């Protein structure tokens, strides 16, 4: 469901930790595959 080169995470806490380390923001995508 995503661009092949986008590395989607599936843990919010993990994403926040990476964002903090890298000075980035967290992009949350809530999607329905149907």
């Amino acid at each position, binding site marked *: 469901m995503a661009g092949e080169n*986008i590395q989607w995470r599936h843990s*919010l806490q993990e994403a926040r930790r990476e964002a903090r380390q890298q000075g980035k923001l*967290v992009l*949350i995508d*809530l*999607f329905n*595959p149907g």
Partner: protein
Amino acid sequence: MMGAVTYPNPDVERFIGQHFIPVQFNVVEQPEVMDQFNASWTPTLIVQDAEGREHRRSQGYLDPKRFLAEMALAWLKDAIDRRIFPTARDRATEALEWTRGDPAREPEALYWAAVAAYKASEDANQLVQGWNRLLSEFPESEWAQRAEFIRL
């Protein structure tokens, strides 16, 4: 559609990689995330900082151009919300590029660009000049209405 059209776009992939850690939740498999994020529809895109503070939210499909405009505004708004105005001024330049020609988002970028320029320089003329440009180019926009008091 976001997965088929928007996310494979090279500019979208690049912009996400530069500024965001992307996290995705399938709401069929994890319906509880709708309550967790106070969401009512999909797709919902939420931009938060690492501390969980929300800076922007979008509901509904976005094609690549509109997605990039939304994300550029989120990147700008993060700096505005944290009151780091020299950074916001730089991000506003980028937001103006990504929102150009988008009648729903370019006025917002102009509004916040003027705020960032003013607060970074402490020169009120920066605000007046920026908002006058907004009022001239997008006089019917909601964002112009938020700035029109400067002409009273």
